[in-house]
């Protein structure tokens, strides 16, 4: 799923899911990133649940598709349907809300269990403009993130802090993962070459089949 076109095309297509409890600011985060607007009456998009962004990172084109998910507890069980085949996940919590951080931990466990290490995880403490009401300590969040192989970011959608960095970093990491995957495929070159030949047999031979069909029907 990492690369759109196989050979020749250098455009990466990534799917990123946004997970987190309701009201932690998932939507504000993407809207700020894609529209650079916050709580604005003039936001032109009809919706903020599926957004795309085109990036150019070190000369490589990247198409980012950001999938928002419903954060209400009763939809939690639907998670796997959303994060299937995604390259990255952004797990958002509210730094003033200890509970939302616990939810993030649950998500991490689930994602690692279902998708292994192929998915790039970002844990995001949002609303740092409300630092005076902080209920999740920086040390705890960062050490936890490190322990599960995720990167931790602090953002504020309101003040537009840390968001560009978050997405840029994530893209770079996803590109690395995709390239590593390609290399791994390249190492088994003989394997893939033979399988490719197999494919070509499949789609070249049918030309012979109609002839056979005609003979037997006639």
């Amino acid at each position: 799923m990492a690369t759109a076109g196989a050979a020749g095309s250098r455009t990466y297509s990534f799917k990123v899911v946004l997970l987190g409890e309701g009201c932690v600011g998932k939507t504000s985060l993407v809207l700020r990133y894609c529209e650079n607007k916050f709580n604005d009456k003039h936001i032109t998009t009809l919706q903020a649940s599926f957004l795309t962004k085109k990036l150019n990172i070190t000369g490589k084109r990247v198409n980012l598709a950001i999938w928002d998910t419903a954060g209400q507890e009763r939809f939690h069980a639907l998670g796997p349907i959303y994060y299937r085949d995604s390259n990255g996940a952004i797990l958002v919590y509210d730094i003033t809300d200890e509970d939302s951080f616990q939810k993030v931990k649950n998500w991490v466990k689930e994602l690692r269990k279902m998708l292994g290490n192929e998915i790039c995880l970002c844990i995001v403490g949002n609303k740092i403009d409300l630092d005076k009401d902080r209920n999740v300590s920086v040390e705890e969040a960062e050490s936890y993130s490190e322990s599960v192989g995720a990167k931790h970011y602090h953002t504020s959608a309101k003040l537009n802090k840390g968001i560009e960095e978050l997405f840029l970093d994530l893209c770079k990491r996803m590109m690395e993962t995709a390239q590593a995957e390609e290399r791994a495929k390249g190492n088994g070159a003989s394997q893939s070459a033979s399988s490719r030949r197999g494919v070509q047999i499949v789609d070249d031979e049918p030309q012979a089949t109609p002839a056979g069909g005609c003979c037997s029907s006639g």
Partner: protein
Amino acid sequence: MSQRTERRGIHVDQSDLLCKKGCGYYGNAAWQGLCSKCWREEYQRVRQKQIQDDWALAEKLQREEEEAYASSHSVRDPQSAAGHAALAPFSKFEEKKTNEKTRKVTTVKKFFSPSSRTSSKKESPEGKTPSPSISRHASFDTDQVSKDFVEFLKNLHKPGREIHKQCRAFLMNMSSKKDLGADELSECVQDFYQSLADRLTGHFKGSSESVEQVMDQVEKYIMTRLYKSVFCPETTDDEKKDLAIQHRIRALHWVTIQMLCVSMDEEIPEVSENVLKAITDVIEMDSKRVPRDKLACITRCSKHIFSAIRITKNEPASADDFLPALIYIVLKANPPRLQSNIQYITRFCNPSRLMTGEDGYYFTNLCCAVAFIEKLDAQSLNLSPEEFERYMSGQASPRFSSSDGDWPDGAQGVGVAVTNPALAQLNHNLELLSGLCSRQEAVMEAAQSLQADLLSWSESVQREVRDILEKYPLEIKSSKVSAIDTNNVDNENLPSPIKPQVFAG
């Protein structure tokens, strides 16, 4: 759905390449893993069986028709019997592989698909010929699609011909694989998509737009042709699932917009208009044949939901708003053959569209909505288990518990209208109708008085004319003025007429 990830890679083992009959020659996936010789034997055998089956079926149909004809003379209501007999063979013909035991369910399916019924009628005359071929499935629709496809490929010149050849070969190939399971069929189609897309990428030098364009057309062409045999096939339990979800949604008819916490205010006319459009779109999905067109219906439905939320909340809809709203729409619409459609799209849609695009996102949400509806319980609606049970069993209804619990009669109607948007709409419409009625009466009255006016006017005109005639009677006085006329040629006042003179010559 989960097998999608495995499908991406194509694993070919050395042993897989050999003929499955174990004759030692290399086999071929196009021949179901057999070598050319074994395949020919196998194919002949299957074909013979198919031909025999077809004959048997044709005979059976003949018999049944005769029976129906005979019974139509003895049964008291001959018309309905004849009508029944005429319908039954058609539906049976299309589903000729349907076993007797599943027949009952198939009729239910037929009931939900008027399109397939009509087209099967169209096919029936051709159907008498026992040789099975793809062309038999061709109806007007598919012909049109084929024409469009050829037209489109013409612009591509040589590669276009190649693509067309590939597609034809693939369809041929598929027509011999009808007995495979749905997952195998899906795999065949997906493999075809992938190999074609790879080749196209090579050809177009990585211009993903042109590749996509061609792939869309290929999908349209192939799936229109395959639709009948691969949509809700007998080998799966799609149909059972369809009925299950249909019953489930019907049982949940009492779920209100408040229970789902949907941020749409249906009191606003624009919102309710969008809701209706969304419902229409999601229902329309079933009528499309190409997976991409079905996806487009879901996308249109989603856009209407977004508009409705946007109007209500005046801010862009997030997934937190969208998913509950979609669930509400699905509950209200109860779209026909929902599971079959979802399975069909998952199995046969071009994967690049389904996985990353906007359409894919909305489709995923629809899958989520269906999953939620299937698992929905008291907790997910913030109800107590007892309440939930009572609503499910139909002993109580949340709609009327607020308004004294009985059905609205005329006087109460206004009170209920506040709680129920449908009733509000009804009352509104009734008002409109009574307004129209009184206006109609006014128009009739005016017309009658106009008629009376017209009558009296013509009378008065006649009277006036008569009066004037009486007052000024017509007198004809002889006039002294002479006029040139043939009758008074001899008038003495006139000079003598000129006589023609003859000149010499």
